[in-house]
């Protein structure tokens, strides 16, 4: 798998700290929902550093899109969120990964649990489902710090209003706007049992977010009786900066 340059076609400001980069890639073989790309930056003195970023676009989308959260002490993300402009070239390779992927041909009910920018690969799954007009019953439980930190908020509202079997539940862990009707605490077992499918329906479950959230959710799901073999997890941490 070789490194290649893509041209930034468009930048989408998702939240104050998160942007999506829509890329034109000359040599792109397509991807599966849940895969990522590695991005490599090279300094003038030759120093190179790489980071992994999840693909947010559906496999069916015209262009490849990655969504990046800016970490203030990061080496790569402050460049990608803040300095990059349309027309700039970004060096990357991919698609990468195969464990944390979902295909619309899987007809089990789908449970998606996200913390922060962990929603990105799950959004690729939701967009994949929408692009194929799949009616797979799908529930997203999405934890953000505050309302302004919710990534893809408008699109999630639009897709969940279609009545095609997608429902979205939000929880805000730090601050809530007046009149907020969603959850207001960290994801716990009671919340998972309210949002998740009954375990007899044998859902396929994807959990993505910071390591403590992912491990807590996975443990709670297993404790609640869900089959560990149908829970797929992906952790990210500060090395993602």
């Amino acid at each position, binding site marked *: *798998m070789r490194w290649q340059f893509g041209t930034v076609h468009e930048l989408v400001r998702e939240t104050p700290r998160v942007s999506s980069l829509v890329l034109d890639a000359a040599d792109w073989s397509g991807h599966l929902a849940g895969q*990522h790309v*590695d991005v490599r930056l090279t300094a003038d003195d030759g120093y190179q550093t*790489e980071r*992994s970023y999840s693909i947010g676009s559906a496999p069916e989308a015209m262009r490849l899109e990655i969504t990046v959260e800016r970490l203030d*002490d990061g080496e790569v993300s402050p460049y990608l969120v803040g300095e990059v402009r349309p027309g700039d070239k970004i060096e990357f*390779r*991919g698609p*990468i*990964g*195969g*464990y*944390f992927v979902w295909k619309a041909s899987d007809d089990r009910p789908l449970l998606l649990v996200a913390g922060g920018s962990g929603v990105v690969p799950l959004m690729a799954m939701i967009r994949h489902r929408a692009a194929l007009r799949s009616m797979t019953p799908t529930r997203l439980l999405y934890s953000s710090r505050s309302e302004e930190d919710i990534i893809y908020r408008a699109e999630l509202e639009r897709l969940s209003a279609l009545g095609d079997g997608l429902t979205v539940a939000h929880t805000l862990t730090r601050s809530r706007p007046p009149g907020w009707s969603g959850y207001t605490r960290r994801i716990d077992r009671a919340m998972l049992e309210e949002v998740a499918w009954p375990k007899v329906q044998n859902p396929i479950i994807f959990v993505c977010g*910071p*390591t*403590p959230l992912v*491990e807590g959710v996975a443990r709670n799901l297993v404790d609640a009786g869900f089959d560990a073999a149908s829970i*797929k*997890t*992906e*952790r*990210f*941490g*500060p*090395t993602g900066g």
Partner: protein
Amino acid sequence: MTVQQSDLKLDGNAIAGLLREIFTMEMTTAEGTCAGCHKVHAVGQVEVYMNAPGVVVRCPACGNVQMRIVKGGGRYWLDLSGIRSLQFSAESG
């Protein structure tokens, strides 16, 4: 900022690109048998610590160090002594 150990723990998905360089195949769906406890996990499930000079891979069941990978100076150094076997599709990649 205080970085807790748990913040630095990732999983096999985080080294998918590195493993792809070495094995030339998609490896997160490969199944590895732990040399310590003999349990089988997909590489995507294993614990990965990237704060060391290289990458340290541990078994999610028993904590045994399964792999150590260091890349630098134009070379790879790979210690797989903690993994008994790896099984993966010849079609993947």
